[in-house]
């Protein structure tokens, strides 16, 4: 069970979020101030942090958390919409949401943050006819055949898998996998995706797993 540390001073919002996440199968530790949270941090997978807190503001708390526990993802919740706030928040936080957020969207974003962490990836995923063991980097088709991918192909696929249902632009995908700026007109990604499809799709001419969103990028639907 994943544990969420929720730092929110508003009683109504706090209790509601706690209840909602517990209903979704998480353990939630809820505190109303950012002081003395160190004891919880060792036992936490993700932090939901409100910007406007009494005494110690959310930015300071967030930066402290990142300093002591850099691997714990932080999602900032803000009722302020100033662009400055957002930019400052995203300097250290992994995600940022403005109130009034939809509980489903908050949950989805928390899932994404958790999945991004290698250690918290679900072991097994099923996408289309494929069974994917993310721990062992093994992909097995419904027919029981193991599908062998090159390193780049696997990186591309797993990048799309860690952002399920999200459309990744070609720039995002290229820069996420190659770790260097995308150069316009570069066909490398396209070529890799074509070969990747030949391996994983039942009908590469009519792909069912990696969807092309014309003019934008790619998406893996789960």
């Amino acid at each position, binding site marked *: 069970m994943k544990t969420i540390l929720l730092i929110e001073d508003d009683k109504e919002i706090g209790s509601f979020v706690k209840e909602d996440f517990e209903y979704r199968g998480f353990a939630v530790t809820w505190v109303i101030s950012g002081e003395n949270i160190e004891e919880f941090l060792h036992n936490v997978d993700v932090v939901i942090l409100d910007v406007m807190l009494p005494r110690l503001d959310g930015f300071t708390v967030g930066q402290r958390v990142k300093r002591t526990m850099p691997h714990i993802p932080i999602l900032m919740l803000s009722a302020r919409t*100033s662009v400055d706030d957002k930019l400052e928040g995203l300097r250290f936080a992994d995600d940022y949401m403005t*109130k009034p957020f939809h509980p489903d969207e908050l949950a989805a974003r928390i899932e994404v943050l958790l999945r991004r962490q290698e250690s918290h990836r679900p072991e097994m995923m099923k996408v289309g006819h494929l069974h994917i063991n993310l721990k062992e980097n093994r992909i097995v088709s419904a027919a029981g055949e193991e599908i062998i991918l090159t390193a780049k192909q696997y990186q591309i696929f797993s990048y799309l898998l860690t952002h399920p249902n999200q459309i990744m632009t070609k720039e995002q995908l290229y820069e996420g996998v190659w770790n260097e700026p995308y150069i316009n007109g570069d066909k490398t990604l396209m070529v890799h995706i074509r070969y990747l499809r030949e391996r994983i799709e039942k009908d590469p001419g009519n792909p069912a797993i990696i969807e092309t969103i014309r003019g934008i990028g790619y998406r893996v639907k789960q």
Partner: protein
Amino acid sequence: MNRLKRSLLSQYLLIILIAMMILPATLMLLSTLFFHTLYKTEKEDRFYNGTDIEAMWHKTAKELSSASEDDIEGRFTKLKSIYKDASLFWIDDSGAKRVSVPDTLSIRQNWSISDAIQFMKKSRGDTADPFTVVAFLGEKQNAGFIVFQIPRSAMESPSDLLREKYDFLFIVALLVVFSVFIIISALFFFRIRKRLLHLQKAMEIPENTGIPIMISVKQNDEIGQLEKSFNLMIVELEAGKQQQWEEEKLRKELIANLSHDLRTPLTTIRGHAYRLQKEPLSEKGKESAALLDEKISYMGDLIDNLVSYTLLSTGKYPYHPEQIDINRVVRKSIADWYPTFENMNFKIEIAIPDEQLIWNIDPQWFRRILDNLLQNIYRHAQSGKFVAIRVLDDMLIIEDHGPGMNAESTEQGVGIGLSVVSLMIKEMKLTWDIHTDENGTRIEIRNQ
């Protein structure tokens, strides 16, 4: 008095006064020097003046009235040594030449009366050269006459020569005095100019702080006073700026707090609406819960736009333009909006070229424009089930097949969202056109 002493005006008046006094003083000094020198050269035994020479000659004639021929010759030789160019001779009563100095003087030996008259005629007048003086020797006019002739050229006194030679000195001296005056004046004004320029430079407003730097006041004259006032102005400017900054901070805080105070209860309402949706509800109840949720989103966006509009219209919305590839930003924005339109079964047409299209704009602002426009389509043009986003020829086109902006929408409030777009477009020096009718809306954004 002290104040007067420090005044630039009195300083300059002093310069003029000195110049006015120095001019006659110089003239006097020069004359004195000049004549002193001349005087020295004039201390000679000889005369240059015709009248003086005539007097001298008559005096000589008188003194020689009963002198012997040798005495006369001796006297003539002595005079010759003084008047080097002169010719002197004695014609006695009988018309015979007795003494002539120099000896080589070509003079007829015997003079008739007509000779004498002719000689006299020739030697008369102011212009006759040589200058001739004739005097009867002795008081009785029977000893003949003595003649003194000297070329006019030898009559010019050294002082005249000197004056002629050094006349220009006066002009030079005057020029020097004038130049000194001009140089001093120029220096005086140059110094003033330099200080004024210094002040002017100090007044130029630096870009980072917007407030000039104080300057050090070294003198207490008019410019010094100006510098003092300038420094005083800076102090006040800084105080004003500080106050303005504090007010601005307060206002920003106020807006942020207002937004916070509105959003917090909205979040709670949404939480409860969400909880309600999970309860077993009638169809109508479900509809209400969904509508509640929808309205909460709408309220959130409204607050967002209201805050943005307030900040934008007062120029307080942070703006950081940079060279960005708008194709990339548009692509990312659509990637986020795509599922929303997809879920509503929109036909989505996208045409974004592969090449970069660089605009110098703030990416956050541009993102905001796209979000607002797409949000409008999502809220007000659902019936058209169509959205197209194209980039071509340095232009972004967003199109829908909704009922148009003039149609009565189920929800009001297109206004504030579009106002934010309009302000941002204007601020980023872009232009836009809206073509809207009952068949849809087409928005074109161009880089100027």
